[in-house]
Structures are given as structure tokens and as C-alpha cells.
């Protein structure tokens, strides 16, 4: 076999993965597009018919739809803000050596490995319960009235839980990135009398630019998909106060059995995610494949 033919054969090794992913993406997506223009309810499977843009019209005029988009944006936005800002500050705090550094880092990243359903239920029942939660005890001890978190501040409560889950991810990435920072440069700056703030602003932050971009991209992908945390704590409520786009699609599809409407909503989620990710990939896509042979 000539070496060229051999290379051809070896390239075929990429096919299973590529084909599987292609099927995983295109088959359901094509079905979603098809369902989105059909009237199709799982309870009345024989009544399905073409309805054009009716499902989209239904979704766009459905009050909960706009609420769910706002909730999705608030959830993604605030969690990103907390995790990026908090992550940078905390990773700078634990960067230099101190007694117990290894243990503190382990403590810091632990929440990332807790499954979403556990994280959400632990926060809701053990920490945020207004009667016997840990936060209620702190509030009472300080002479304040305990907050009824999930009833009075439902979206904020969900944001707090999700931020707790994702802050470790940001810390993990930033701590690793800080290790590759030029120590000599930092020491030279210190010798020249640079203040801690100057070093942070002019050396550390620029060094963290790409890691920050990566954290934003990866988190955005996962945060647009937050579901379990809402499912086990508020079930989207009270009313639609914590309903995000994934949760709304889920209620349409598996509770209302309205496949058509759910598909229209699902397509909207796809468009939303792509808008977010197109510009994120532009931001860092180049540097990702920079070393490609």
C-alpha cells in the first residue's frame, strides 16, 4: 500500500466519531424543525397537521415565553458576573504560597463535583429553609428576620445555587492559568516599587484574558441549559418566576404534551445559544486551534 493510500485509511478512523455526532445533531434538529410547523400533541397523535408558523406565533405571544427569556438572560448574566469576578479575586488570593494551600484549593473546587440535584436540594432544604435552615439561624442570631428565599426571591435563590456550583470551575481555570505567569516579571515590578494593585491591573488581569474568555464560553454553554436546579427546587415557579427557556420547553413537551409548541421553543433556544456562542467562538476560536498541525 502506498503511503498516501495508508493515510487515507487512517483518516477513516475519524469517521465513526464524526458520523455519530453528525447524526446526533442533525436528525433531532431536523425533526424539531419539522415538528415546529406541525400541530402535534402526544395525547392526540392522529390529529397532527401542518400549521405553518402558528406554533411560533403561540410562543411569541405566550407571556411566560418572554419571562423565560428574561430569566435565562438574568441567570446566565449574573452567574457569569459572580463567577468571573469572584473567580479572579479568589484565585489571586490563593495563588501565592500559604499554609494549607493545597487543602484550601480542594475545598474551593469541591462544589463543582456535586451533582446539580444534590446542590439544589442541599441549598434549598439545609441552608435556605426559612424555619430551620442555616441561613435562618444566622439571621435570627443577628436579630434579623429570616428570608424566605425560594418564596420571596426565587430567581435570586436559583442564581445563588448555580453560582456556587460554577464558581469553583472559574477558580480551577484561573488558578491553573496563574501558575504559568512570569514570576520574574512580577518580582521585577515589585522591585521597581509597583503596588499590588498595579501588578494586578497591569500584569495579572491581562494574563488572565484568555482564561476569562474560555470560562465565559464554557459556562455560557452550560448555563443556557440549566434545568435540574430549577426542576427540583421551584419547578419553574412561583408562577413563572424561575422558568427559563429549557424549563419552558420541558413543560410544553412533557407536561402539556404539545410537541409542536415545544419544538418551536426548542428552536428558539438553539438560535439563542448560537447567537451567544458565535460571538464567543469568534472571540477565542482562533487561539483554540492555533497549534493545530
Amino acid at each position, binding site marked *: 500500500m502506498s503511503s498516501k493510500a*495508508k493515510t487515507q485509511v*487512517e483518516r477513516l478512523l*475519524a469517521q465513526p*466519531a464524526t458520523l455519530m*455526532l453528525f447524526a*446526533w*445533531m442533525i436528525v*433531532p*434538529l431536523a425533526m*424539531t424543525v419539522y*415538528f415546529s410547523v406541525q400541530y402535534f400533541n402526544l395525547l392526540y397523535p392522529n390529529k397532527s397537521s401542518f400549521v405553518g408558523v402558528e406554533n411560533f406565533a403561540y410562543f411569541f405571544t405566550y407571556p411566560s415565553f418572554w419571562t423565560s427569556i428574561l430569566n435565562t438572560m438574568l441567570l446566565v448574566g449574573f452567574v457569569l458576573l459572580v463567577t468571573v469576578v469572584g473567580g479572579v479575586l479568589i484565585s489571586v488570593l490563593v495563588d501565592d504560597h500559604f499554609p494549607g*494551600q493545597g*487543602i*484550601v484549593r480542594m475545598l474551593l*473546587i469541591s*462544589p463543582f*463535583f*456535586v*451533582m446539580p*440535584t*444534590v446542590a439544589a*436540594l*442541599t*441549598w434549598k*432544604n439545609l441552608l435556605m429553609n426559612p*424555619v*430551620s435552615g*442555616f441561613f435562618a439561624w444566622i439571621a*435570627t*442570631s443577628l436579630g434579623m428576620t429570616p428570608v424566605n428565599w425560594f418564596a420571596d426571591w426565587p430567581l435570586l435563590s436559583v442564581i445563588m445555587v448555580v453560582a456556587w456550583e460554577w*464558581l469553583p*470551575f472559574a477558580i*480551577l*481555570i484561573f488558578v491553573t*492559568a496563574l501558575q504559568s505567569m512570569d514570576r520574574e516579571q512580577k518580582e521585577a515590578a515589585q522591585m521597581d516599587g509597583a503596588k499590588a494593585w498595579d501588578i494586578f491591573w497591569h500584569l495579572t488581569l491581562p494574563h488572565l484574558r484568555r*482564561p476569562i474568555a*474560555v470560562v465565559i464560553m464554557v459556562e455560557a*454553554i452550560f448555563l443556557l*441549559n440549566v*434545568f*435540574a436546579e430549577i*426542576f*427540583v*427546587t421551584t419547578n419553574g415557579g412561583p408562577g413563572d418566576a424561575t422558568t427559563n427557556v*429549557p424549563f419552558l*420547553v420541558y413543560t410544553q*413537551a*412533557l407536561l402539556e404534551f404539545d*410537541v409542536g409548541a*415545544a419544538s418551536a421553543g*426548542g*428552536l428558539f*433556544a*438553539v438560535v439563542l*445559544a*448560537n447567537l451567544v*456562542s458565535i460571538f464567543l467562538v469568534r472571540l477565542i476560536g482562533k487561539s483554540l*486551534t492555533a497549534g*493545530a*498541525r
Partner: protein
Amino acid sequence: MSTAKSRKRLWRNLRTVAAWAVGFAMFFPILWMLLTSFKTELDAFSMPPSFLFAPTLENYATILERANYMHYAWNSIVTAGGATVLGMVVAVPAAYAFAYHPTKRTRGTLLWMLSTKMLPSVGVLVPIYLIARDLNLLDSRTALVLVFALVNLPIMVWMIYTYFRDIPMDILEAARMDGANTWKIMMHVLLPVSRGGLASTALLCLILSWNESFWSLNLTTSQAAPLSALVASFSSPEGLFWAKLSAVSTLACAPILVLGWLSQKQLVRGLTFGAVK
């Protein structure tokens, strides 16, 4: 001079205290869950919270007996493990082809794979649910294995690809000169050299699959439900058994937490598609 020195020391001590405080605060919910799991239901609900209590294993006994913990744990092991094996079997050859026999399209294909991660799960929830239903795969471990493997495949290909890319071509060329064929090069050169990278890739897939909740909740009810779904069943209003909830949560999280601690350094690479080292 000495004041500057003592000031520096003070600053350093403050920093250490602050770092420990933040670490403790982040870990506290997990610690509280662990403590609660050893309390009686009465202690778990008491106000002010009981910090000193006679620890009991009663909750764990109940969970193992009544909640049929082993059934769900087995589902988690089979689905997460199965997805990891399946994913590796498909991802390693693909990464090999991308790293050593690239074409003009390789870069585009890699970015496209990454972009499938951006397809929101809800966008394909309805079709996947219907396909699973029509194939009689609802509430089956097979469906979860396939879905978990596909969801994690892009990350796995990327991660292994970045490990392969760092292996000097010379090693492979030398083996080829010695007359080794592709299979032999893979088995005797590439895989041993990249053992660490492959292990952490598999570990990451295992962790992500174990904790996956969206598909577990939507595609399973009881037969194939993994631990994340079992925990969710404690969210019902009548399930106000916090000590037991804590016990089952601890049992569900402990193995993954330990794996995570052991592999934190290597995980960064996978989680950022090799963009941060």
C-alpha cells in the same frame, strides 16, 4: 525596616486567614450535608442547629434498605461507565486521525464538533424523547449510555487530540521506520505514552456523566434512573426527611468528589479544550 517587615507578615497572615475563610465558606454546604446525614431527623430539623450531636448511621441504613440505593447506584455505574467506554472507543481513533493525519478540513471539523456542545439539550429534547419512546428505549440504560457518550464526545475528542498533539512526531516516525503498522503504533507507542491524558479524559467523562441530570430526569422514571434522579425524588413536599436526603446525597456525591480531588489538575485541560494549560 522592622515595621515594614512586621507589616508584611501581618498582611501575609491576614491573607492566609482570608483564604481559609473563603475555602471553608465554599465547602460549608457540603460539610453541612455530611454532618446532617449523621443526625437523627429531629436533630436535623432543630433550631438552633445542633452542632454537637450523637452521630447515627440510621439514615444510611434506611437509604440502603428502603430507597433501594444500590439499584440506582448500579444504574449510575453502568450508564456513566458505559458512556465512558463507548466514548473512548470512538474518540481515540478520531483524535489519532485528527492529530497525525490532518486534512484541510480537520480544523473545521474540530471546531464543528465543539459547536455541537452549543446545541442546547432542549433543542433536541422532543425528538430524542420520541425516538427513545418509539425504539422502546425510554427508561433504559442503553438510551442513557448513548446520550451521555454523545454529549461528551466533543470534549473527549478535543481533550485526547490536545494530548496527542503534544507527543513528538519523531517517536511515531521511528516506530514506523521499524516496520510497525498503525495498530501496533497505537497499541505499543501512542497509548502507553499518553496513558495519563487518556485516563484523565475518561475520568472527566465519568464525572460529567455521573452528575448529568437533564437527560436522566427526562428519559428515565425508575428502571434505569441513576442517582441524580433518585436524589431528585426527594424534592417532593412529603419528602421532608432532611437527614435521609443528606445521607443519599452524600452517597451519591462522595465517589465523584474524591475522583475530582485526585484529578483536578488534569481536568482543567479537558474542560477548556486545551486552551488553558
